[in-house]
């Protein structure tokens, strides 16, 4: 697999505070790479280093196998980025902003190219409006437009759904999926909305206090192959006996928490288990799938505290 983005032992301090500490990560071509961490974990600092807004104290960044440094930024031609909320020249129109920002990449876009990308993000009818008249969501979409206009291979999105309403979030999510699946872009996305990342990312990294906690395939990290179900039942002790009689191991295949039993095994399906409980006279009030990224994230970052 071709490595598109790699950091090696990246560190950054602000005075005495270590924002990023010895961080190494790897993004492969075609990945939708989720970049997660609690507030203050060092996500924004890392993204600012990846986009050369700040420079690391130690460590190296390689984009398409080329080292990024103050004197060598040409590789950023292949990168489109939104860093935090996109801000524009408010006194210029959407069209002019895109034209200027594209020219900074060294190419002059045609009117058709700009209108196409504005159409893609749903702003074609506002092409001639000054950006100061735009809502936050519209600026966010214009941010995506500027990140895509020069047809980059790697797209870095820092909290792209911040401040958007549910419809806007859905649109951005669909956009990211489309960019990955239909256009083959590699996407590096940071978000505090774990559900969003769970829905779109194939690989992810979680950082905390500037350090890597875990990195890998979302599917593996969340054990998605394992059945993960929560049962709420009338008699928890009787239910436990039933599970043990089915050769399920406490603490490994299932865990009990007050009136809930969390099942995590492939040995038995949830529907069979439900039937068995009912046959044994145990009322099942509810059962539902579990093991979301949010839980995993809280579990893993809580362990760090």
């Amino acid at each position, binding site marked *: 697999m071709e490595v598109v983005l790699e950091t090696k032992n990246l560190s950054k301090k602000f005075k005495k505070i270590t924002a990023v500490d010895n961080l190494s990560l790897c993004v492969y071509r075609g990945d939708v790479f989720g970049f997660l961490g609690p507030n203050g974990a060092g996500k924004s600092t890392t993204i600012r280093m990846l986009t050369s807004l*700040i420079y690391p104290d130690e460590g190296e960044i390689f984009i398409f196998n080329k080292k990024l440094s103050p004197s060598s930024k040409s590789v*950023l031609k292949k990168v489109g980025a939104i860093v935090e909320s996109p801000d524009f020249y408010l006194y210029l129109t959407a069209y002019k902003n895109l034209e200027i920002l594209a020219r900074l990449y060294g190419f002059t876009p045609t009117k058709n190219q700009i209108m196409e990308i504005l159409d893609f993000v749903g702003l074609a009818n506002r092409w001639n409006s000054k950006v100061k008249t735009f809502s936050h969501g519209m600026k966010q979409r214009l941010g995506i437009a500027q990140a895509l206009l020069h047809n980059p291979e790697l797209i870095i999105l820092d909290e792209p759904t911040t401040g958007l309403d549910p419809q806007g979030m859905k649109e951005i999510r669909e956009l990211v999926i489309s960019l990955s699946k239909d256009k083959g872009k590699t996407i590096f996305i940071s978000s505090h909305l774990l559900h969003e990342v769970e829905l779109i990312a194939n690989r992810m990294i979680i950082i905390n206090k500037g350090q890597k906690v875990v990195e890998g395939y979302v599917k593996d990290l969340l054990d998605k192959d394992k059945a993960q179900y929560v049962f709420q039942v009338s008699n928890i002790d009787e239910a436990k006996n039933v599970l043990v009689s089915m050769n399920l191991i406490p603490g490994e295949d299932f865990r009990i928490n007050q009136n809930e039993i969390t099942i995590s095994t492939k040995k038995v399906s949830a529907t069979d288990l439900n039937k068995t409980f009912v046959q044994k006279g145990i009322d099942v009030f509810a059962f539902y799938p579990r093991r979301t990224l949010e839980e995993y994230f809280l579990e893993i970052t809580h362990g760090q505290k």
Partner: protein
Amino acid sequence: MIFTLVSIELYKIFKKWRTYIGFLAFGIFIPILIYGVSVSGNHYQRILQRNIGDQFLIVGNLVNGWYVAFITIQAMIIHIPFFITLVGGDLFAGEGSAGTYRMLLTRPLKRELIVVSKFIAGFIYTFIFVLFFALISTLPSIYFLGVGDLIVPLEKIVVIPSKEILTRFLLAYFSSFISMCVVLSLAGLFSSLVNNAIGPIVGTMAVIVIFLIIGELPFEFFERIAPFLFTKYMTVWLDAFDYPIDWTKIFNSLLILLGHIVLFFAITIFYFRKKDILT
């Protein structure tokens, strides 16, 4: 690429309302001044004749277009620097406060190029502003008040014959342009340090005013310091009206001013090259 960057920077400068404040101010003030001089110039001419008539043989109208142009060029000391800092102070800090550094500096451009383009665009703005000022100070006043000899009432009274005046003004405006480039460079330097344009504007003006005051204080201590203050050389344009012209003094002053431009520019590059963009 540098041409593209400069054109973009110029586009941004001239799309901002603040850029036109100076043009507007002098566009309004100078016609009023010309009108005022034209209606009360005779009275002022009588005062001048009374004061210096026994020393000079005065022929023709002293309160003419050139005289108005000479009055207005005094604005180069404080007023025009203020309008220059309005733009210079915004060159970098404007990007910081608007958050557009995040767009600008994530492009595959060396930061040195961005600094160079912003300074060049600033110098072009300065040139256009000084040119505008020169034209609006001279052409309407000459049209309405006519020409004649120029009387320069400074430390000593110099009367410049009309055939020399155009050359003197060209030299004065050129020197002013270099002086204003120093102002822009200093404002640009301050602007690169912060993320709000108010600081660089106030800071630059404070430096100029304080240096001007120090440079004029009649005490030995300050007299020793004065040659090291760039403001001492910013009034080089006044030397264009001396008689005879002290070319060595003008040349040295311009050289020192150019040295300051290079110094402020170099510090900006040095700092901005590694600046962490946290806005």
